[in-house]
């Protein structure tokens, strides 16, 4: 489902003397449907970078990034947009809050963008929010005023609203208490069971051990130190 071949990435900082910072080289990875692969490596080794490359948020310098039949590294913007709507989900570390949109609609949005009727979308959103212990009285409020943990749970609910065949999860259990963590891991298990290919970053070892089928150490993709 997800297949990376020889992906490399560097940043060129034009306004700082054109400093070139290579961050990744030769990244190769395969994730099959129903598999959950955990990315590990020291902080700054490139775990989030790899995830952003797969999502198309970062431009790959070389290599191919196949998600289903689409090569994200070479695809047209509209192909990536379509991919993100229907195939590839991404739960980032931070919820980007749009002022005024109620939490329920934030979670329902991925369903609305694939054409789900609004009532059905909101029902599913309600179920997810309830499962993640967001009290109903908060559903009509914008998450701008929520606590970090509450925002993260809204973020997760949104990521799982639609059954994406491929999912990228960046620290989904960070800042969650034990009960909510268990719920999220349950969502991941359910996604695996329906055949989603998942890549996750978990700092929490126990969580990692529970849901990941194998691990990939991204420091293996670090650029070779200049001689």
């Amino acid at each position: 489902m997800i297949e990376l071949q020889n992906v490399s990435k560097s940043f060129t900082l034009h306004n700082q003397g054109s400093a070139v910072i290579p961050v990744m080289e030769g990244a190769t990875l395969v994730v099959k449907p129903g598999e959950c692969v955990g990315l590990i490596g020291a902080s700054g080794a490139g775990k989030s970078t790899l995830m952003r490359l797969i999502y198309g948020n970062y431009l790959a310098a070389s290599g191919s990034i196949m998600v289903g039949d689409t090569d994200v590294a070479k695809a047209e913007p509209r192909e990536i947009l379509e991919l993100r709507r229907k195939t590839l989900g991404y739960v980032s570390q931070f919820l980007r809050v749009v002022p005024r949109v109620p939490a329920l609609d934030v979670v329902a949005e991925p369903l609305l963008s694939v054409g789900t009727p609004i009532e059905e979308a909101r029902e599913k959103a309600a179920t997810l929010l309830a499962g993640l212990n967001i009290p109903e009285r908060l559903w009509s409020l914008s998450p701008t005023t929520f606590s970090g943990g509450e925002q993260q749970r809204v973020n997760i609910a949104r990521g799982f609203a639609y059954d994406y065949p491929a999912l990228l999860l960046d620290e989904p259990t960070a800042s969650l208490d034990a009960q909510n963590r268990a719920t999220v891991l349950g969502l991941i298990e359910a996604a695996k069971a329906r055949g989603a290919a998942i890549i996750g970053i978990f700092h929490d070892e126990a969580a990692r051990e529970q849901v990941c089928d194998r691990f990939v150490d991204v420091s293996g993709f670090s650029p070779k130190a200049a001689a």
Partner: protein
Amino acid sequence: MTPLLQVKDVAKMYGVRIGCTDVSFDLYPGEVMGIVGESGSGKSTLLNCLAGHLAPDRGEVIFDTRADGPVDMVTMSEPARRMLGRTDWAFVHQHARDGLRMSVSAGGNIGERLMAVGDRHYGDIRARAADWLGRVEISDARIDDRPSAFSGGMQQRLQIARNLVTGPRLVFMDEPTGGLDVSVQARLLDLLRGLVREMGLSAIIVTHDLAVVRLLADRLMVMKDGHVVETGLTDQVLDDPQHGYTQLLVSSVLQV
């Protein structure tokens, strides 16, 4: 799928000064393209060339019309272009005053495009105008008020209603939130997002405000001195800018 709009090598010069040059892109149904740049970047010139307000010196702007398929707007006859401007296209000006008739009531402003395409039933026209006022969150008790009695944000929302009532497929917006208070901007942007999704609109939005494009645009074009220096998915251009100027723009935005 046929692109809704194909822009090919559009250029506009002001004597020897470059207004904009070498602009090419395709826009598909449902896509929102943001064009950012600082003053003098050529973004407004480009928008006006695309919308038919200015004649470009070079290039084609091919729109997929409902009746005749892809047609080059630059060489299209003026009557046909003006008709398109009232039906399938919309233009939201930065200053609502440029896009509204200030001495005509809100209902009349919204109804004008309907009357221009032949609607002749007062009751129906009024009902549709009231419906659209609701959609842009203006109380329909104000249907007979003149826009001169509205706040800036309300005027802008009225302008949007006036433009969208005929269900256009392509909307051009020139700094739609410019000059509005921050909270008013937020409301307007949210409204636009909702309408774009509900109506499956394609849009081209010119702005200098990166937060606006982050929220509204799927794709982004960065302009400097009349040239397009970078283009791509909005989040990619903003999070992983490749061109030096884009990097400068992104790093200049103050975080709140």
